[in-house]
């Protein structure tokens, strides 16, 4: 009898509907159409730029991305879906923008070309469009991910709100007329209508911290990647939409 009960419970859990929703579903039809159609999606301007940056040497006579990595359609397929990842060289997890910046630094030491970096992010993430978010099964990521989860649940700022307070407990309700999304990083880098520009997950998280009147973490602080690690794990299996469009 007990065996049957346990089996039924397992089956019930297995067929329980996945209640996770991408922020795409919380947008108006017009904004959804903007993302869905490559001829309408402003993010594609950066994907096109990234395509050109990929094949162009950063320094005269030096290598291009293509020179080492080959055709991005093959070499970069699935890459964006498994970031953040552990970087042995720095002995800590890094996100995709940091990974690209590190490559740029190696090829052209000195001032990083942030504009080229953003275009490359868009182009690389585009190669994973439609693929499920797949955080690596790496034991070294566990502690940072748990710190990210703790950050997600920690009350911050003058408004004393935790991410979880809105994006777990109140997702689907409204804040000042706008629907509260669950906050999955399915679209990054996104063309955000509020920015009228393409931007990273870190930029979006910084806006959240400002929104609760908290001091944003320093630019290279580990907290950003720890949060991103937790968010990727929380969204595992959901398809990547890069480049996404969001309000």
């Amino acid at each position, binding site marked *: 009898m007990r065996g049957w009960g346990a089996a039924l419970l397992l089956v019930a859990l297995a067929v329980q509907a996945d209640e996770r929703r991408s922020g795409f579903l919380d947008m108006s039809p*017009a*904004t959804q159409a903007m993302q869905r159609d490559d001829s309408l999606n402003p993010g594609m301007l950066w994907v096109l730029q990234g395509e050109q940056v990929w094949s162009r040497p950063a320094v005269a006579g030096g290598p291009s991305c293509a020179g080492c990595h080959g055709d991005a359609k093959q070499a970069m397929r699935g890459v964006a879906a498994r970031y953040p990842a552990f970087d042995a060289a720095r002995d800590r997890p890094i996100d995709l923008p940091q990974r690209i910046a590190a490559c740029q630094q190696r090829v052209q030491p000195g001032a990083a070309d942030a504009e080229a970096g953003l275009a490359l992010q868009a182009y690389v993430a585009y190669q994973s469009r439609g693929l499920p978010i797949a955080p690596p099964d790496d034991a070294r990521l566990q502690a940072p991910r748990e710190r990210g989860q703790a950050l997600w649940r920690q009350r911050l700022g003058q408004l004393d709100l935790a991410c979880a307070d809105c994006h777990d407990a109140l997702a689907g309700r409204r804040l000042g007329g706008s629907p509260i999304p669950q906050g999955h990083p399915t679209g990054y880098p996104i063309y955000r209508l509020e920015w009228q520009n393409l931007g990273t997950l870190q930029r979006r998280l910084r806006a959240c911290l400002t929104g609760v009147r908290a001091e944003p973490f320093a630019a290279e602080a580990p907290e950003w990647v720890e949060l991103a690690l937790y968010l990727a794990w929380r969204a595992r299996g959901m398809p990547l939409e890069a480049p996404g469009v969001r309000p």
Partner: protein
Amino acid sequence: MNTLNRRRLIAAAGGLWLLRPAAATPESLAAALRDFSGGAPLRDGRVQLDIAPLVDNGNTVPVGVSVPGVPAEQVQALALFTERNPQSEVLRAQFGPRAGERSLATRMRLATSQQLVAAAKLTDGSCWVQRVDVIVTLSACLE
């Protein structure tokens, strides 16, 4: 409106492009329409303005203007105006001999909930308008 939303509106009005030292007025809108129509009286109808009644973000709002039912060769120009943006003008377009359907779509900025006016000038000198009210909500968590 609770304190939270009021703070967000003030934050938005203070730093972003919602700040408008000189706002459009009903007079400037009327003047802009008169300039487009060349003095012809404004008649309701014929021109169609396509826009969602409730927009996600006033920074980038898809909008379309067309003149269904009017033969293409009879449409000389289309224009779009606003009631409450800093300026009344949004877009004006003239069509040449190689134009197809007399229609266009673009993305505009809406400073606040307001009325939009689409206008079409025909080759017979007449000018037709359609007015639509649009609601703009602010996005939360502004930088």
